[in-house]
């Protein structure tokens, strides 16, 4: 009995949280800092950095350990292994893409380190019953639902065509879109998946034009979105509305292409004029600091790191206690109210409302829902100039 005592004491000591008072809480961050999604990834990194500043200003000492997945799943997987087992972080924020998030979620559950997903859309990420996986943003079906609800309130479209990139993000959002469209009485007349990075969509768009759809629903990352709209103009595709499913349709680069972005709708996780606390100030601060307008990804990363940092600090840097703090807590900030709930088959999903914007004269204007709308939507699409 006496021989067990020292071992027992050592064992008990090793179970205590290793972070002594004064040591900064470690937060992990996985992002696409290089690679094709780098332009969007930049927003996430900047948002995260601003959040770390704010946490420190409030007296919460955190250190953000960043890992780059370059847009590739296998890199994201090794990143979380490094963060969870090597650095022993309290919580991981990220990754950006749905594909990487999908690869990383089972590992987070396995290593028992909470994962807070800031911006990935794939439905299944929070439908697998994983207690360690949390998602801040709204999932794929909300993208589709918000866009369709916004447009159905403006007119009587009957047919819809889908064009989407063929990875997890595109297929997830368009699948949700197709199901909802049918439920709302729209007929799906075209369903075209394309390889991400393929530059020529003219044949696909001509095929869609031949069906004369009332609505064209597109899901793409940055470069594809611009090329799709350019080539839509070339082939003369003229539906009642172009619906862009976030991501590429939600960037300053797309907004700047005035001839082709005009009157395109996009669904977004955040705009500066939603009236959520600090939303407008965040946009001004971001613009002043980084000389660019923030996309919704910046706000998502900012809010995610704030939530993760507060939860982790309150739990003394222990991953298991951080998970409980995340599951039970509620916050409010630039992304509105945040509370992770389980409902309708979702686990640890924040019920986030997605505003819909329309590009008018080269500027993104919030047009739906009514409580956030600043301008009236222009419908139907009058044609290309």
């Amino acid at each position, binding site marked *: 009995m006496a021989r067990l005592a020292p071992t027992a004491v050592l064992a008990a000591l090793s179970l205590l949280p290793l972070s002594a008072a004064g040591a900064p809480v470690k937060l992990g961050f996985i992002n696409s800092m290089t690679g094709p999604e780098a332009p969007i990834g930049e927003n996430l990194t900047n948002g995260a950095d601003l959040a770390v500043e704010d946490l420190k200003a409030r007296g919460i000492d955190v250190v953000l350990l960043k890992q780059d997945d370059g847009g590739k799943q296998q890199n994201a997987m090794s990143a979380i292994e490094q963060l969870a087992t090597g650095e022993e972080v309290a919580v991981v924020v990220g990754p950006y893409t749905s594909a990487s998030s999908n690869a990383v979620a089972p590992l987070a559950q396995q290593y028992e380190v909470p994962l807070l997903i800031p911006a990935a859309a794939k439905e299944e990420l929070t439908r697998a019953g994983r207690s360690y996986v949390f998602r801040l943003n709204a999932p794929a079906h909300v993208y589709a639902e918000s866009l369709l609800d916004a447009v159905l309130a403006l007119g009587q479209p009957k047919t819809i065509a889908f064009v989407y990139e063929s990875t997890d993000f595109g297929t997830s959002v368009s699948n949700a879109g197709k199901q909802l469209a049918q439920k709302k009485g729209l007929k799906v007349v075209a369903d075209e*998946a394309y390889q991400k990075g393929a530059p*020529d969509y003219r*044949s696909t768009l001509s*095929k869609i034009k*031949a069906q004369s759809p009332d609505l064209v629903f597109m899901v793409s990352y940055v470069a594809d979105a*611009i090329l799709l709209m350019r*080539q839509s103009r*070339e082939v003369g595709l003229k539906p009642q509305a172009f619906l862009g499913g976030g991501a590429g349709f939600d960037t300053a680069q797309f907004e700047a292409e005035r001839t082709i972005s005009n009157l395109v709708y996009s669904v977004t996780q955040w705009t500066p004029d939603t009236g959520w606390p600090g939303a407008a100030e965040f946009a001004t601060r971001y613009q002043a600091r980084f000389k660019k307008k923030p996309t919704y990804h910046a706000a998502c990363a900012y809010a995610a790191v704030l939530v993760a940092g507060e939860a982790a600090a309150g739990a003394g840097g222990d991953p298991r206690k951080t998970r409980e703090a995340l599951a039970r807590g509620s916050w409010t900030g630039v992304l509105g109210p945040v509370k992770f709930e389980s409902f309708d088959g979702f686990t640890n999903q924040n019920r986030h409302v997605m505003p819909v914007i329309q590009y008018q004269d080269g500027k993104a204007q919030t047009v739906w829902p009514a409580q956030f709308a600043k301008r009236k939507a222009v419908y139907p699409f009058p044609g290309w100039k």
Partner: protein
Amino acid sequence: MILFLQSLLSGVLIGGVYALIGIGLTLIFGVMRVINFAHGELVMLGMYATWVLFVQLGWDPYLSILAVAPLLFVWGALLQVAVVNRALNALPQNQILLTIGLGLVMSNAVMLGFTSDYRILSTSYSSSSFELGGLSVSYPLLMSFLVTAAVTVALSLFLLRTDTGQAIRATAQDRLAAQLMGIDVRRMSVLAFGLGAALAGVAGALVAPTYYIYPQVGGAFTLRAFVIVVLGGMGSVMGAILAGVLIGVTESLAAVYVASGLKELVVYVLFLVVLLVKPSGLLGKSRA
């Protein structure tokens, strides 16, 4: 019917640019028997050169061909003299490894200098088109096709009518015999590589207004160029033209009548079928 003609038209127009890339590669192979796996990276360099000239000096992409072509010619000649020439008598697999290595160095150097952000060239005509008999013709694609046609005609005249051009063809036909005839085959190799690189650069300038520009774009072009060159018959310029247009049309029609996601598959299936039936390619000479 309209849809068929529309896809056929897009296919032919895009095929022209593919053909240009293929011609460059086939020229290099014909003269040096070296398969240049860095060819796509040469196209990528052409795209970046065009982009830099557009952003810094405001040059229209079609006009900057006049600067990009000589620039890439000099670069190609330099690569040949400094690197590839040393490997002309090496094993084919070593030559391939060498060019792959060159490609990696080029794409990563560009990534270092320009970051891997996607760049988009926006000109006033980037999405313009005009109606022609019910079909919508893309302005940038049409311009590319016309420039490609002009370049191909100029190249044919060079190869058929000038002394240097005929010397290049002689070297491609039989290196030893050409040497015995007094042709400086080393110089011909340098010229051929430079010419191939210049053609790749022109192709890059032509597609820059309609593609996205990023350091790794070369890989897809190399693959496509390789398929075109083998399909058309290695060393045959006419074959490369034919194959390029064929691939463009196949891709376009497959996107419409099969599925957008499977259009590459159809291209490769066609490639395999042709190789099974005629292994030396469409216009290639079978080894006697």
